[in-house]
């Protein structure tokens, strides 16, 4: 049901440029206006989300300590799991953001009799890493369409990525890996009972959307070739704010690819995909476990009424005296004042 809904939405998204460009001929709307709008939504939306989170304070320091705290000098302190200083926190965040350390924690190998078993969770880490890193590399590779003189690091990454010279033009390794990662993540949602049970359409949709983007990209590279020179004229124009529709023929597949990318960008700030920036805000990870060493301020902390010693002593004066527990006269006076 949720999957079908996502597929329908995706089909509509593919149909829009097909009709818009193919039938109505609104080339510049789809090549220039919509991408600009989508990326404006992406940038302003995400900055809005960031500021929105930042508007709420983090009142208490609630680090999740997954390792030994810094205490006595002779006890080995776990720097990554229970960071006590800022740079240890940066290190923890680095491992968290770039290597998905918490997911990796699921890694576990067990022996059931003689058979070695791996649970699904390790695969989750692998699938996630494959997908995210491939996505990053693919994005960097795409800089060749946006910059006139392509920087050398982009050239190097592309060269490494097409290391296996299979066919003309060579296949990118990340193209295969991203599909493998995404395919796994999607399959997992369909097959793993507990994940399937808690998946919404908004979980399937981004996966399907990114898969479609990757597939249209791969199709263009290998089979249905567009005029790259014309594409670069367009994209370079977009990046330098001199947008113009090139003379050459931008293929239909390119319009679909561009529209899906625009959809992803516009959808990003309003979906679960904001975890990309949200992870940096996570208070259980980005705070040091130094609560007893330094003070954390809560801006809305307010005084509360509690039963004071003077009130309490008055209430229990008789039993205190009878039990021989000392009465503090100094504080009796405080109460009377």
């Amino acid at each position: 049901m949720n999957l079908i809904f996502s597929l329908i939405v995706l089909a509509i998204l593919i149909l829009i440029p097909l009709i818009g460009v193919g039938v109505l001929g609104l080339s510049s709307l789809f090549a220039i206006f919509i991408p600009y709008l989508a990326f404006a939504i992406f940038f302003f939306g995400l900055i809005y989300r960031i500021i929105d989170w930042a508007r709420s304070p983090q009142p208490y320091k609630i680090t999740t300590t997954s390792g030994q705290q810094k205490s006595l000098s002779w006890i080995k302190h776990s720097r990554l799991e229970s960071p006590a200083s800022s740079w240890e926190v940066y290190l923890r965040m680095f491992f968290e953001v770039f290597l998905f350390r918490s997911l990796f924690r699921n890694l576990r190998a067990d022996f059931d009799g003689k058979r070695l078993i791996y649970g699904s969770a390790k695969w989750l880490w692998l699938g996630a890493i494959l997908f995210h890193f491939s996505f990053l590399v693919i994005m960097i590779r795409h800089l060749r369409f946006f910059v006139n003189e392509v920087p050398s690091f982009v050239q190097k990454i592309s060269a490494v990525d097409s290391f296996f010279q299979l066919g003309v033009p060579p296949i990118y390794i990340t193209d295969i890996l991203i599909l493998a990662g995404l395919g796994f993540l999607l399959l997992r949602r369909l097959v793993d009972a507990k994940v399937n049970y808690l998946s919404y359409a908004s979980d399937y949709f981004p996966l399907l959307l990114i898969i479609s983007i990757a597939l249209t990209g791969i199709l263009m590279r290998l089979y249905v070739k567009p005029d790259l020179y014309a594409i670069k004229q367009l994209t370079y124009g977009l990046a330098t704010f001199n947008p113009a529709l090139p003379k050459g023929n931008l293929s239909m597949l390119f319009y679909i690819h561009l529209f899906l990318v625009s959809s992803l960008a516009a959808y990003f700030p309003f979906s679960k995909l904001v975890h990309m920036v949200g992870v940096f805000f996570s208070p259980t990870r980005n705070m040091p476990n130094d609560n007893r060493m330094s003070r954390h301020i809560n801006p809305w902390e307010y005084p509360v009424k509690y039963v004071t010693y003077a009130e309490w002593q008055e209430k229990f004066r008789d039993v205190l005296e009878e039990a021989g527990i000392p009465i503090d006269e100094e504080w009796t006076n405080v109460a009377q004042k």
Partner: protein
Amino acid sequence: MYNANKVIIGIIVFLIFFAMPFWLNFGKVEALPKPELPKEEKKCIEDTDYMKAYHMKFLDEWRKTKVREGKVYYINKEGKIYKMSLQRTCMKCHDNKEKFCDRCHKNLVVQPDCWKCHLAPEEVKKWQ
């Protein structure tokens, strides 16, 4: 806004990373280099749109049929016969590799391996 310093640094890093195309082009907007087309010939072997997109597949096909099947001639859609040769047929009209091939290829980070074996017209001139 709380933790303003860190949040603003974060936003700046975000903008630097995701607006990279903009920064890399900043202040040096120029026209893309255009490949120089042959002045005499108006028509390529197949029509221009097809050649623009598929020339690498086309050349690869030529290479395979020539080397593996030993065929020497290619007949285009209009029935015209061409000898399958990069150096003698293609580069006869497109007589400058640097001004025709490389301009696009360099610009789009394409590294074809044609010239590992073949000689560019410029090189040929040098030898002659």
